[in-house]
C-alpha cells in the first residue's frame, strides 16, 4: 500500500500531465474547434465577466480620456471644415469622368475589452457583436488608422484580428498610388509597438522615408484609402527582385479604446482619400 504523501504526489503529477496534455491538444487543435471552444466559453461562463468589463469600459471617464476625446473631436471638426468643398469637387469630377457615386455605408462604434495576456494586441475582444450589426470580415479602424478585421462575431462580442497578428495581410499602396504591395507584421519591432512590412515592391520602385501607406482596396475586404502607416526605411531587399519596406503603423491596437467597425463600403471621416488617382 502506498503512503499518503506518495499517493498525493502521484495524483499531483497525474493532474499536471493531464492539464499539459489538454493544453497541447488545444494548441494543435483545428482552428474551427478552437473558435467554437472559445466562443462557447464567452457565451456561457465568461458572459457575466465580459458584461462587467463592458460596463467598466463604458463608465470610464477619466480626465485624460476626456481631453483625448476632445482633441480628437476638434481635429475631426477641423478636417470636416473643408469636406463640403471636397465633396462638391468630387461629385463634379465623377460627373466629368462618368463615374458612379461612391458607395456609402455606416460604421458601428465598439469598445475594446483589453485583456492581460501579452498577445492581447493581436486579437482584440470587442464589447459589441452581431446584434449591433458586426459581422466577420468587416474592417476595423480607430481614429488613427487601420486596426484589422473582424475574425468572428458572437451575439454580444466580436474578435478582431489586428495587423499585429502573424496571419494578417492587407493589400496596400503609397498615398499617390505609384507603388503597391502587401503589408504584414514583422519581427522587427520598436519598444512601443510591433512594426509592419510593405512587401512585394518591385526593385525598380523606391519609396521615400515618410511616405504614407494606405489600403489599396484590392481583395475587397478593406476599402481603399484607410491609413496603414508611414514608411520608415528599407527592411531588406533581394537584388534585382524586390524591396521590403519597414512601415510604422498609424494605429496601435494595444492602446485602442474605441474602434469603428466599417459596414459595407463605409469610409470613416479622416481616412485618406479614396479618390486619390494613381
Amino acid at each position, binding site marked *: 500500500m502506498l503512503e499518503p504523501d506518495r499517493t*498525493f504526489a502521484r*495524483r*499531483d*503529477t*497525474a*493532474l*499536471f500531465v493531464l*492539464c*499539459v496534455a*489538454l*493544453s*497541447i*491538444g*488545444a*494548441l*494543435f*487543435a483545428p482552428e474551427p474547434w*478552437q*473558435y467554437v*471552444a*472559445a*466562443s462557447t*466559453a*464567452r457565451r456561457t*461562463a*465568461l458572459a457575466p*465577466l*465580459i458584461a*462587467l*468589463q463592458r*460596463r*467598466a*469600459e463604458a463608465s*470610464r471617464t*477619466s480626465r485624460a480620456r476626456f481631453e483625448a476625446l476632445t482633441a480628437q473631436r476638434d481635429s475631426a471638426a477641423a478636417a470636416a471644415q473643408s469636406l463640403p468643398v471636397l465633396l462638391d469637387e468630387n461629385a463634379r469630377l465623377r460627373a466629368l469622368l462618368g463615374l458612379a457615386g461612391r458607395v456609402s455605408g455606416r460604421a458601428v462604434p465598439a469598445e475594446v*475589452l*483589453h*485583456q*492581460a*495576456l*501579452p*498577445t*492581447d494586441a*493581436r*486579437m482584440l*475582444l470587442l464589447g459589441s457583436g452581431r446584434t449591433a450589426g458586426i459581422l466577420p470580415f468587416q474592417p476595423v479602424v480607430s481614429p488613427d488608422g487601420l486596426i484589422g478585421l473582424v475574425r468572428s462575431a458572437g451575439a454580444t462580442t466580436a*474578435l478582431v484580428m489586428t495587423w499585429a*497578428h*502573424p496571419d494578417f495581410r492587407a493589400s496596400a499602396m503609397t498615398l499617390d498610388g505609384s507603388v503597391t504591395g502587401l503589408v504584414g507584421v*514583422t*519581427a*522587427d*519591432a*520598436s*519598444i512601443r509597438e*510591433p512594426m509592419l512590412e510593405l512587401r512585394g515592391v518591385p526593385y525598380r520602385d523606391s519609396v521615400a522615408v515618410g511616405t504614407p501607406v494606405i489600403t489599396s482596396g484590392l481583395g475587397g475586404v478593406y476599402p481603399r484609402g484607410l491609413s496603414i502607416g508611414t514608411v520608415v526605411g528599407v527592411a531588406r531587399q533581394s537584388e534585382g527582385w524586390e524591396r521590403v519596406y519597414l512601415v510604422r503603423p498609424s494605429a496601435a491596437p*494595444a*492602446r485602442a479604446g474605441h474602434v469603428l467597425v466599417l459596414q459595407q463600403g463605409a469610409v470613416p471621416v479622416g481616412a485618406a482619400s479614396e479618390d486619390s488617382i494613381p
Partner: protein
Amino acid sequence: MTAGRARRIRFALVMLLLVWLQFYVRPRLWSPRVAPDFLMLGLMLFAIRSRPGAAALAGFILGFASDALTPARFGAAMLANTLVGYGAAWGRAVFFADNLLVNAGFIAAGVWLRDVLVLIASGTGGKALLAQLFFWSPLLGLSTALAGVIVLAVFRDWLDIRLEE
C-alpha cells in the same frame, strides 16, 4: 461551521474580489499592458497555499478563460498557466515564502514566466519578443507584485499565508 470551512470561504471571497478587480477595476487603471493582472495574482496566491496538482488545474482553468478572451494562439495561456501554477506550488516548498518581499518577487517572476511561455507558444520572435520580455512584462510583473503586496498585507489572515513581522 468548522475552522477549515471558514478558511476556505474566506479564501474564496478574496479570489472573488480579485476577479471583480480584474474585470471592473483593471479597465479603469492606466495602460492595459502594465495594469496589474489580478487573475494571475489569484493563481499565484492559490498556488502558494495549495498542492501542485490543484495549482496546475487552477492554472489550466484560468488559462482556458484567458485563451477564450484573447484567442491569438488558443492553448498558449492554458499551457503557460498550468506550468506556472504547478511550478509555483513546488517553488513555495523551496523558497519558504514567508516574507512579503519574497512573495512579491515570487508573483512578479510568475507573471514574467507566464508571458515568456505565452509568447514562445504563440510563435513571437525577434525584437518584438525582446521588447515584450525586457520592457512590458517586467512592468506588468512589478505592478502585479505591488498589488500582491497590498492584498497580502490586507488579507494575510484570510489567506492563511504566514508572513514575517
